[in-house]
């Protein structure tokens, strides 16, 4: 058995170092874990909440020997996690999956929801190096525009566009509206997208007709995390092992499913 996979996939019990509230529905959890602390932007970990569940989470930051994930309370597992405090024990395996390439030319990030977390991780790596770093993010309402201030500070000046569906901040529309206009106006060498899949689909459609390189991080129901069980497949790809970051060329291959359907826990196709 490959020693590296064995080490990465071995469950490590660890204590929650800190919990930070990011929004009314979102918290950031930090753990000590040497292996996950070596993760690259785009990679994910599997978090075991004892007696509840084990879920895949994108990595938001690493620092020294610690790793952070940002979690929205949406289901049983994430709600149980939100009730946990620093000092309590969880389990980790990972980091898993591939990572975003780190393009340092003219880069545009498009984010939504907790998808902003891995983009923040990426932006920290790119901020000093990229020729241009621009951002378009959207949310339902102002306090769900996660990491807006941190992202804005890392981007090139005057290069951030925020949208909300209720108009409580920025433009009152979906993120894809100003994105379309921006792409008409300006040339980008790479677009990194992370967020709800219908948004990613629209970003893909907009970049595709202009032939702009793109990478998007996808999410699926996941069980094993190591490319065996098939729960997270999209087309011929396993999101956990071949992804979670996919190039425009790969997204083209899975166009029939991207933003449209995924496999449910019983393996039946369900609409997104």
């Amino acid at each position, binding site marked *: 058995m490959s020693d590296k996979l064995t080490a990465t996939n071995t469950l490590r019990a660890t204590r929650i170092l800190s919990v930070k509230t990011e929004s009314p529905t979102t918290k950031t959890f930090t753990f000590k874990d040497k292996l996950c602390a070596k993760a690259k932007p785009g990679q994910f970990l599997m978090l075991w909440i004892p007696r509840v569940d084990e879920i895949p989470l994108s990595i938001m930051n690493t620092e020294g020997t610690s790793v952070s994930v940002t979690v929205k309370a949406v289901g049983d597992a994430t709600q149980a996690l939100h009730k946990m405090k620093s000092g309590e024990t969880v389990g980790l395996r990972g980091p898993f999956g591939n990572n975003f390439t780190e393009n340092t030319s003219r880069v545009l990030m498009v984010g939504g929801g907790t998808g902003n977390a891995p983009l923040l991780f990426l932006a920290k790596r790119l901020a000093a190096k990229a020729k241009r770093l621009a951002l378009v993010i959207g949310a339902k309402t102002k306090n769900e525009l996660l990491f807006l201030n941190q992202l804005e500070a890392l981007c090139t000046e005057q290069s951030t566009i925020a949208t909300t569906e209720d108009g409580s901040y920025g433009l009152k529309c979906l993120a894809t509206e100003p994105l379309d206009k921006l792409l008409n106006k300006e040339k980008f060498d790479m677009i990194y997208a992370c967020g709800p899949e219908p948004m990613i689909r629209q970003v893909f459609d907009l970049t595709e007709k202009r032939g702009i390189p793109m990478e998007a991080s996808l999410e699926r129901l996941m069980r094993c995390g190591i490319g065996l*069980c*098939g729960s997270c497949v999209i087309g011929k790809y396993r999101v956990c092992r071949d992804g979670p970051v996919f190039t425009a060329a790969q997204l083209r291959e899975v166009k029939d499913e991207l933003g449209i359907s995924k496999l449910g826990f019983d393996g039946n196709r369900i609409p997104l």
Partner: protein
Amino acid sequence: MNSNPLRTRLAGLELRNPTALASGILGYSAESLQRIAEAGAGAVVTKSVGLTPRVGYPNPTVVQASGGIINAMGLPNPGIEAYAGEIRHAKTVLAVPLIVSVYGYSAEEYATVAKAAATAGADAVELNVSCPHVKETGSEIGQNPALLKDTVRKVKAAVRKPVIVKLSPNVTDIVQLAQAAATAGADALTAINSVRAIAIDVETAQPILSNKRGGLSGPAIKPIALRCVYDISEKVKTPIIGCGGIATWQDAVEFLLAGASAVQIGTAIALKDPAVFTTINRGIAAYLKKKKHRSIKEIVGQAHRN
């Protein structure tokens, strides 16, 4: 004529090489199966499918052990009615035999599901009578010679395609079960399914898998699987498909020498990616050449003769 030394026949199936995807690995969608076939597998076995949909167990469903992986997925599957569409789709894109793994809660249910799979286009069915982690299906039948015989007979009466029986190592004497399946008309036997196992987290002092117990697969079980194949082939004439911890061509050749006519590969896909099929087949071909054999058949069971 037989220019490809890897080509072989098994239970009426023409295989371009003796490696197949083991059940439970990927295998929901036609695209996944196609990818494995393109990566070099000689046949593919689907995830186990039953009469009605099952969502399986909550996570953790997989836990790393030394030398292997313990899983308790809980047989998640969309049910044969929905899966028939995927079987039909798979048949239009696959260039290798499609073996559909089926399970049931009774002999009659196995027969019903197997019939539906065959009707949808399965080239063969593999009876999962050995799932180590779902109660009242699989191993309850696979551990009882009389129930196993009855199940195999009912499936054989319901389908005209080859019927493969996947045996459990979680029994006192696997040969007795192999004989029961063979007597009832099984066209081939797969040995073995995963080995019942558990992992406990010392910090929280509790089993890690949500189902507590699961099945161990991977290199750790290879010597056990190999011994099972060796034992069965000593007493039973029915062709055997070796399965359990195969990750290298040497592993595959060991199973052939022990008496297997073909092998299945599963966990190694996580260790080495789907290209593991091509690597293993190249290794087997080089071994045959070096040992001056013209076909796989010449080495099947050779360890018993030497």
